[in-house]
Every structure is written in structure tokens, then in C-alpha cells.
């Protein structure tokens, strides 16, 4: 039996190779993701450990909410007096103050150096060579009020060399500096896409920090004093509100932050890997089903010769495991290459990752093999059981593959699966359980696949009609597509999965865009919105000059931040109360904005959830200043721009350190003209090249573009699963060609030209592909609709179909069909007529 298994594997090399490719790609995705994120994690660990090698203990303001993840710039700054006190502690070899904050570089063309959302850091050139994280690569260290050193990555990207002038945007007014040095962060040129501007300590305090204070203190120990011991001694001299932590803890916090980010990244990639593998499973399932149908006589003969059912099942499963092992090995190795390729891709995009060794964790190896072998074996399970049901009598029968059984069981199981899937999906969406959403989608796909066999014949019949009208190749191709509904639906279903997800995210995107129009119209009163491209924070100076200018009614500066309310960390915005009513269309439920100066405004949603009324006290805890309860001044109706919590700008600035803005909203007077006010606003932001000025229409448009960018990225990642599905079509067609060799020979004998034969197979392929696309579009739109409904409370109130994209999907599917047909058609056309006619 074992020998027979391997013989049969070898005899079908090509078929199995194709189905193996699907698993290889999925496994490569999995192992690539793990290798990439593990390697990145390791690199950051090393980096953080290395750059702060000389430091034993850090002193910083106590974070009011959670830990600060290595970034203390949001905490209470450490005053000079604390540094002076720490210096006197026994066992301190050296104590220096460090400064970190916002510094946005402007390139030579006057454009802000973009980072794609990574921070734009302003740092001090540490006075201590021992504890300095930055290394000088070129030029000299910054030493005066107009000196700056920038990181080598940014210097290269923006074309700066030592001696160049550079404008730097700061939380206060922008300033011009001279580049005196090019620096690295530890051994790397660039810190994962962030830009670095380093100043001498005094300038750093003045421009990115607060004069007379430090973001944190870095303390080196004398020999013989442990980190723990030094921490204890330093803590003793610290006033309330400050804490000492060991360097180890600082490193751990920073790595934890990075690892959470990487974890999110890796989960996102793994979701796409899972989709690809799911589609791959369809391919395996279909391939095995067809091979077993074709081998029915051979299997029956084995049964007739005394092989038990179990032996037959096991022989098929063994085949699948061999393919699984083979594919896992190849996929695993390929994944390491994928990780390397992704690293260089990120590098090309300007995110210079510090180079390091490739980390292959045991987990990566295990996951690759478990996933690869598991998916293959599970997908082959049903065909294997079906193989064991082949009755020995079939060995004597003279017919080809057995006639098809009824679809009753199939439709019952399919119906149950569909109902279960939809149930899981709605539960998941309602409760925000992402796992249930994913599982629900998966089960729904399986249900639809099984049920789709019921409608495969009529639907492919209709789809094939236009082709059938044209000529006999079309009519034959249509007939072949209609011929075996199970096979057609399983092949089409693989394509359905990828395309359904494309259709779902497109529907969601299109609905988001429509909803944005409505939200902006209903919630935003401002005529101009001033912001940066990625909504990164910007200088508090922006918009200040506009106040009181002719034609300008009010200017609201929105600070974005977070605070702990009760036990939850929530987004909180700070804004001038008097301008609020002008720039946001807020409906007051109770109370009034007059009392907001030292109170808090909460949305109806938050108020209802917590049972607050006007005058109640809300427990608010800030990162910098800790607990400061605020009285509810006003309850307002839900407004997407206001969020759930609003405080006055004064309250916000008092309790946070950054002093940066997120958005500035400008309302013009009724008697002004847009041309006049636009010129005024444009003029006012001229010193800040990172600021975009947008009127409502432009704001809506840019939001739409942002949604499109995200959609395209997701669609791009789904392309892999669509490609695997195309492999599946190729496989099905190739197997069909083999199965129908005799028919093809007959057709050629009675005069069908090669060209016509190829067209026949192309038609079959296109009909199957378009059928899959139609299923995908239907299921996808349904998913999209469910998502939109679930996000209704988040402001996605409009449902809108992305017609253009859906038509695109159908066209792409048809083209994929043509493409998939190429090889099998060529093979069919090359069949030797005589051999084909003579084959059994």
C-alpha cells in the first residue's frame, strides 16, 4: 500500500506540484512574517540595550496613566533642582539631564521631511560621552544656539550635508539652524523612519523642551553599585511625582512598546497568510477530489484485492502529508527570503531598519510545518474518506468517473454552515469580537461554497450563453463548465474568497467615503481645516496670527491627547471653548459651553454609559499631572469631530507636556469671500510647510484619498489569495483536460481546429472565473453591508456600493480566466489525436 502511494504521487508530479505551490505560498507568508518581526524585534532590543549601555538608572516624572513605553516626553519634566539633588547621591558616578521633543525638519525645497507617521525627534547632544545614544558620523557636535546635527538617514534622503542651512519647525516659532554634524543612532543611520535633530543641551531645552527642566535624567553608577541599589538610593532623594527606574526597565518598556507595534503588524500579515492558506486548502481539496474521481477504478481494484477502507483513506492522507511536508520545507525557506525582501522594500521606502541577524525562532519552524501539513491534510480529509467509499465493484465497471450523487446532503450541510457562519459573524460584529468575525466569515465561505454547487449549473449556463451564441467552441466550453457543479463551484469558490474580501473592503471604503461627506456636512462648521498630512502633531504657533484678522470669525486649536477616565484610557481633546460653537456643529443636550473653561464636555453616548449629568464629577487622570477630577459642564449630541471628551485648551495644556496641536479649525465671517480668507490663511501657515490648508470639500477629498490608499494596500495583500485561486483554476482545467482526453481526441477527429479547442477551454475557464467573481461580489457586498451596519454608531451611517470597483473585479476575474486557460489549452491542443482517441 505504501509503495502504491508513492508510485501514485510520482505519477502525478505536475498536479501535486501545482497544489503544493498554494501551500508553499501560504507557508512562506507565515514564516516570512515571523522571521521579519522576530528579526526586527531582536534588532530593536539590541539597539535599545546598546545605546543606553552607560546608563544604570533613569529618573522621570511619574506617568499618571499606564507606563510611558520608554517615551517620557508626555510626563512631568524633571526640574534642575532634582538633577542637582541626584548628583549628590552616593554611588552616582555621573548624572545628566536629557531632553526629547518635537522638531520637524524642512528640506531644501521648503517641504517638511515626511516620515509616514514616524516621530520627528528633537534631542539634546548629551553632555556625557559615556551615556550618549547618538554617535557622530561626520562634522562636529552641535555647540551653539544655531547648531544642529541630523541623522544620516534623513541627511541622505533630504540631501543635507555639513554646512547646510536647515529650517526646523518647533512647538514654538520655526527657526533656522546650520547643520554641523551628521549623526547615527547607535550603529544605525536612522531610527525606523524617525528623523532626529540634535541640539546642544541649552538649545534643546529652549526649543524642544522647557528651559530649566529635562525630559528625564540618565545616571551612571559607580563601580560596585548595582542598578537596583542605585535606584533605591536615588529614589530616596526624589520629590513626589518623580520616580527612578533601572536602565533594564527602561529598555524593557521601550522594547515592549516596539513589540506591541510589531505584534499588530505581524497579526495583520498573518491574517492575509491565513486567507491565502484557506484558499490554498480549496485547491488541495479540489485536486484530491478530482484525482480520486479519476482513480476510482484503481482504488476499487485495491479494495477488490483486499485493501481495507482504512488503508485507502490512509494512503490518500499519506499523499497529502508528503505534499504538506514538501511544501512546508520550501515555503519555510522561501519565507526567510520574503522577510529579507520586505526589509529591503521598507528600506527603499525610507524606513531604514537597523540591520541585524535573521532570527528564526523555533516557533517559526513549528508554525510553518504545523500550518503547511495541517492545511494539506485537513483539505485532503474529505476526499480521502470519499476514496474509501469507492466500492470494489467499480473496478469491474466499464464507465468513466462515477455518476454524480444528489446534492441533498451537500445543501443541508451547506445551509447549516451558512447559518452558523452568519450567526457567528453577526455576534462578532455586534460585540467587536474579531476572532468570531474571522471564524464567521470562514464558515460562511464554506457554506456558500457547498450551496453554490446547487446554482452552479444554471448560473454558469447563463454566463456561458453569450459564448454559446458565437460558435461551437463556446457552446462546448459552456457545457463543460456546467457539467460538474461540484468541481465548478469548488474551483470558483477559491476565487470567491479573495474577491469577496476585496468587494467587502471596497464596499466599506465606499460607504466610509459617503459617510465622511455626511459627517463633515453635519458636524463640521469650520471653513478651513489646518493639519499635517498624517495628522501628526504640529507647532502651537500655527493659526495664532489669524485670530482677529478681518474676515476670520474664530480660530479653534484642537489638542489631541489621552487621559484616563474612570478605568479606561480614552482620547481627550482640548480646545478654546469660545471658538467651539463656530467650528463644530454641536447640539447641546444639557448644560452650556460657558462653563467649559475648567469643566469637561462629554458626549451623550459617554454620559449615558456612565450615568453622568451636568454638574457631576468625572474622574480624569492625566499622564503628566495625575488625577484632576472635572465637573461636567455640558452634554452634547454625538459629533464625530468632537469625540466623547472635550476640555478647554487651558485645562489641556496645564495637564500635558507636549504643547502641540492636532488640528486648527478656522471659521470665517459671513461677509468675507473665500478668495480673501484663503489667501489670509495660506499666508499665515507659510512658515509651516508641514501644514495643509483644506476647505471642507478638500478635507472630504483628502479623507477619501486616505481611505483609497488603505483600500489599495489591503487589496494588494489579497492579490496573493487571488493568484492562488487562479492556480486552482489552472489545476482544475488541467485535470479536466486529462480526464476528457478521449473527448478532445474525438473533437479533433471530427474536425475541431486547435484554435477552436483552445477557445473551448478558455470559455470554460472564463465562465468558472466569472462565476467565482459573482459569488465573491455577492458575498463581499453582504459582508460589507454587515460591517457598515456594525460601524453605524462610529459614524458610518451611509451604505454605498463601489460600482466601479465591483465591475473591475468581474473584469479582472474574466481576464484571470483567460490567463488560467493558457497552459491547459495549450496542452489540450497539443494532444495527439490518435493517442487521445485510443486512450481509455
Amino acid at each position: 500500500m505504501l509503495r502504491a502511494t508513492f508510485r501514485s504521487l510520482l505519477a502525478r508530479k505536475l498536479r501535486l506540484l501545482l497544489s503544493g505551490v498554494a501551500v508553499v505560498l501560504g507557508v512562506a507568508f507565515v514564516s516570512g512574517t515571523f522571521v521579519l518581526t522576530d528579526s526586527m524585534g531582536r534588532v530593536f532590543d539590541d539597539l535599545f540595550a546598546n545605546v543606553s549601555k552607560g546608563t544604570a538608572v533613569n529618573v522621570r516624572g511619574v506617568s499618571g496613566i499606564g507606563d510611558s513605553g520608554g517615551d517620557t516626553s508626555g510626563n512631568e519634566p524633571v526640574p534642575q533642582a532634582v538633577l542637582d539633588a541626584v548628583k549628590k547621591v552616593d554611588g552616582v558616578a555621573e548624572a545628566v539631564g536629557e531632553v526629547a521633543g518635537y522638531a520637524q525638519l524642512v528640506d531644501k525645497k521648503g517641504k517638511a521631511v515626511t516620515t509616514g507617521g514616524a516621530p520627528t525627534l528633537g534631542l539634546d547632544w548629551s553632555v556625557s560621552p559615556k551615556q550618549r545614544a547618538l554617535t557622530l558620523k561626520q562634522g562636529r557636535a552641535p555647540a551653539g544656539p544655531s547648531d544642529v546635527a541630523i541623522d544620516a538617514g534623513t541627511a541622505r534622503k533630504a540631501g543635507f550635508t555639513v554646512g547646510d542651512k536647515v529650517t526646523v519647525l518647533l512647538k514654538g516659532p520655526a527657526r533656522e539652524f546650520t547643520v554641523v554634524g551628521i549623526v547615527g543612532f547607535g550603529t544605525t543611520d536612522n531610527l525606523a523612519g524617525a528623523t532626529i535633530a540634535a541640539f546642544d543641551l541649552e538649545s534643546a531645552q529652549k526649543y524642544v523642551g522647557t528651559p530649566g527642566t529635562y525630559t528625564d535624567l540618565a545616571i551612571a553608577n559607580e563601580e560596585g553599585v548595582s542598578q537596583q541599589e542605585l535606584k533605591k538610593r536615588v529614589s530616596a532623594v526624589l520629590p513626589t511625582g518623580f520616580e527612578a527606574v533601572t536602565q533594564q526597565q527602561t529598555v524593557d518598556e521601550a522594547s515592549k512598546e516596539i513589540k506591541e507595534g510589531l505584534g499588530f503588524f505581524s497579526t495583520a500579515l498573518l491574517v492575509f497568510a491565513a486567507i491565502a492558506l484557506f484558499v490554498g486548502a480549496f485547491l488541495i481539496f479540489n485536486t484530491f477530489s478530482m484525482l480520486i474521481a479519476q482513480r476510482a477504478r484503481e482504488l476499487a481494484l485495491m479494495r477488490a484485492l483486499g485493501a481495507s477502507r482504512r488503508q485507502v483513506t490512509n494512503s490518500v492522507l499519506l499523499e497529502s502529508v508528503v505534499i504538506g511536508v514538501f511544501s512546508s520545507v520550501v515555503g519555510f525557506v522561501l519565507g526567510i527570503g520574503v522577510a529579507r525582501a520586505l526589509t529591503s522594500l521598507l528600506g527603499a521606502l525610507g524606513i531604514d531598519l537597523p540591520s541585524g541577524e535573521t532570527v528564526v525562532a523555533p516557533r517559526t519552524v513549528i508554525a510553518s510545518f504545523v500550518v503547511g501539513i495541517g492545511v494539506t491534510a485537513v483539505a485532503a480529509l474529505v476526499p480521502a474518506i470519499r476514496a474509501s467509499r469507492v466500492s470494489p465493484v467499480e473496478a469491474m465497471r466499464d464507465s468513466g468517473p462515477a455518476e454524480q450523487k444528489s446534492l441533498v446532503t451537500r445543501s443541508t450541510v451547506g445551509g447549516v454552515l451558512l447559518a452558523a457562519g452568519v450567526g457567528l459573524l453577526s455576534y462578532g460584529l455586534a460585540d467587536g469580537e474579531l476572532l468570531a468575525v474571522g471564524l464567521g466569515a470562514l464558515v460562511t465561505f464554506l457554506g456558500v461554497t457547498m450551496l453554490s454547487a446547487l446554482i452552479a449549473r444554471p448560473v454558469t449556463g447563463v454566463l456561458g450563453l453569450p459564448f454559446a451564441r458565437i460558435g461551437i467552441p463556446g457552446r462546448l466550453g459552456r457545457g463543460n463548465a456546467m457539467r460538474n457543479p461540484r468541481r465548478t463551484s469548488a474551483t470558483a469558490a477559491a476565487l470567491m474568497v479573495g474577491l469577496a474580501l476585496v468587494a467587502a473592503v471596497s464596499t466599506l471604503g465606499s460607504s466610509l467615503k459617503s459617510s465622511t461627506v455626511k459627517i463633515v456636512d453635519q458636524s463640521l462648521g469650520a471653513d478651513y481645516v489646518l493639519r499635517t498630512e498624517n495628522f501628526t502633531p504640529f507647532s502651537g504657533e500655527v493659526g495664532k496670527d489669524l485670530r482677529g484678522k478681518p474676515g476670520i470669525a474664530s480660530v479653534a486649536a484642537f489638542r489631541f491627547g489621552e487621559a484616563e477616565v474612570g478605568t479606561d484610557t480614552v482620547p481627550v481633546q482640548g480646545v478654546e471653548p469660545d471658538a467651539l460653537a463656530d467650528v463644530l456643529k454641536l447640539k447641546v443636550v444639557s448644560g452650556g459651553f460657558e462653563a467649559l473653561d475648567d469643566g469637561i464636555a462629554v458626549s451623550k453616548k459617554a454620559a449615558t454609559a456612565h450615568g453622568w449629568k451636568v454638574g457631576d464629577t468625572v474622574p480624569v487622570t492625566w499622564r503628566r499631572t495625575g488625577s484632576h477630577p472635572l465637573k461636567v459642564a455640558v452634554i452634547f449630541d454625538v459629533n464625530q469631530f468632537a469625540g466623547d471628551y472635550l476640555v478647554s485648551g487651558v485645562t489641556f495644556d496645564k495637564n500635558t507636556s507636549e504643547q502641540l496641536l492636532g488640528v486648527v479649525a478656522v471659521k470665517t465671517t459671513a461677509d468675507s469671500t473665500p478668495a480673501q480668507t484663503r489667501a489670509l490663511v495660506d499666508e499665515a501657515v507659510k512658515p509651516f510647510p508641514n501644514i495643509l490648508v483644506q476647505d471642507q470639500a478638500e478635507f472630504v477629498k483628502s479623507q477619501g484619498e486616505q481611505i483609497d490608499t488603505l483600500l489599495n494596500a489591503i487589496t494588494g495583500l489579497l492579490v496573493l489569495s487571488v493568484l492562488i485561486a487562479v492556480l486552482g483554476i489552472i489545476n482544475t482545467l488541467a485535470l479536466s483536460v486529462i480526464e476528457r482526453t478521449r473527448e478532445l481526441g474525438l473533437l479533433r477527429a471530427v474536425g475541431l481546429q486547435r484554435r477552436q479547442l483552445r477557445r473551448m477551454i478558455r470559455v470554460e475557464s472564463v465562465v468558472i472565473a466569472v462565476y467565482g467573481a459573482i459569488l465573491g461580489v455577492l458575498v463581499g457586498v453582504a459582508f460589507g453591508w454587515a460591517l457598515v451596519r456594525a460601524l453605524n454608531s462610529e459614524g458610518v451611517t451611509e451604505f454605498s456600493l463601489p460600482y466601479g470597483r465591483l465591475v473591475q473585479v468581474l473584469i479582472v476575474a474574466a481576464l484571470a480566466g483567460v490567463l488560467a486557460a493558457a497552459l491547459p489549452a495549450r496542452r489540450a491542443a497539443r494532444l495527439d489525436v490518435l493517442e487521445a482517441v485510443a486512450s481509455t
Partner: protein
Amino acid sequence: MSTAAVPAAETAVETAAVRAVDVRKSYGKAETAVTALAGVSFDVPRGQYCAVMGPSGSGKSTLMHCLAGLDRVDSGDVQIGDVSIVGMNDKALTALRRDRVGFVFQQYNLLPTLTAEENITLPLAIAGRKPDAAWLHEVVTAVGLGDRLSHRPAELSGGQQQRVACARALVTRPDVVFADEPTGNLDSRAGAEVLGFLARCVEEFGQTIVMVTHDPVAASHADRVVFLADGLVVDEMADPTPEHVLDRMKQFDVAGHLITDGTA
């Protein structure tokens, strides 16, 4: 070597539907080459029902394949009607098979996705032509399938399927119909029906038929039997009866070689 075949090739020049001139064909490479046809020459006049007989390995199937344009000859000439098919490219050969040749194979003769009628008109559909309704009706009536035209092959008996195949072979009014063991897969009654039908085609429509068979009963329906052995035409017989054919066949030994020179 028999000389009986040579005069046959030299007579009936004007009206031949199929003509083979010194056709040679071998398979395999130099040393291991197997000669299937060692120089076969013979004509089938228009309107003749000609059976080709011979033991296994005599080359009768190869001959039919070469005559029908399914296989290429090594040397010699093959003509269908007045056209030499030797040297035609695949496209031209395919078109020739479609328009001027009909086929009836032993088994799996029909496309399962098409109805009986669609199978019958398949060669016309491939050529993009409309069937001639009167002729189609005549053919369908002759094979006795009038009420089964909308059935798919799976719903027809073996004999019915083979009659559909015969109708398909006739529908283009080909120069010649090649039948390769058309009764090989049928029981004797169904076989007799098919044979009877083929004979009627010759009588009523003047159809030329070349049938390869090893069944003396099948061969006895033909006007003429050509005997093949070792890749050569060794004998022929006009107005055959099953007994005569069987007697003649008995002269081939077990290995298929000729025991004595033909005397029939």
C-alpha cells in the same frame, strides 16, 4: 508476397473515393522500428462499402488512420476524393476531416454534454454551418432516432449511441465514412442494427464506407473485403459471406502471419 492486391490498385481509377498508393508507415526508431504498413496500395470506388480485415498487428487500424488523415504516412500518397492529403498541415487536415470525412469509433463516440441532435450536427457546428433540414431529417429517420434527439448520450443505449455516431458521420455528406470496429462494443443485436444501417447508407445514399473489423459477420455486410497481413494487402473478396471470410481468416496463423498464398 501476394500479387493479388496490385491489380486492384490499377483498376477503378476514375471513381475512387479513397486511394492509397504505396503507403508505408513504421513506428519507433531505427533498430527497434516496427513496420505497420509496408507499401499498401488500394482504391475504394465511390459508393462502395469496403471492409478491411486482418489479424491483430496486420496494420489495418494504422491504414485506416492514415487514410483518414489522423496519422501521417512515411511515404506514398493518400487521396480523399481528388485531393492528396499527404503533406497537408494540421489545420488543413482538420478541416478535411471536418468537411470530407466521417468517423465512427468503437466506443466513447459522443460528447456527454451535448444532446443526440447536437452530437449529430457537431461537425456542421464546428464548421459554422447550418444543417440542411431535409438531409438531417433523412439521416435521423434512417438511424431510427427520431424521438430520442433531445436525449443526452448517458440516456441512450450502446446501440443507440452508435447510431447517433453513424448519423454524425453522415451529416456532412462526406466523401468517405471510416468506421473503426463500430460493433466492437455492442451485443450482436445492436451490432446487427448498426451494420444494417451502414449497408443501407451505401444503397440509399451512395455513401462510401471503409470499415475496419475483425468480425467476419460484420465484414459480410460489405461489398468487398480487403485482407491485410504484415502491413500489406494480401487478398480481397467481393460479395463476402461470413463463412467465406471466416475460412479466409483461418489461413492466418496465431501470430497473424500468412500461412499460404491466398487462393480464394
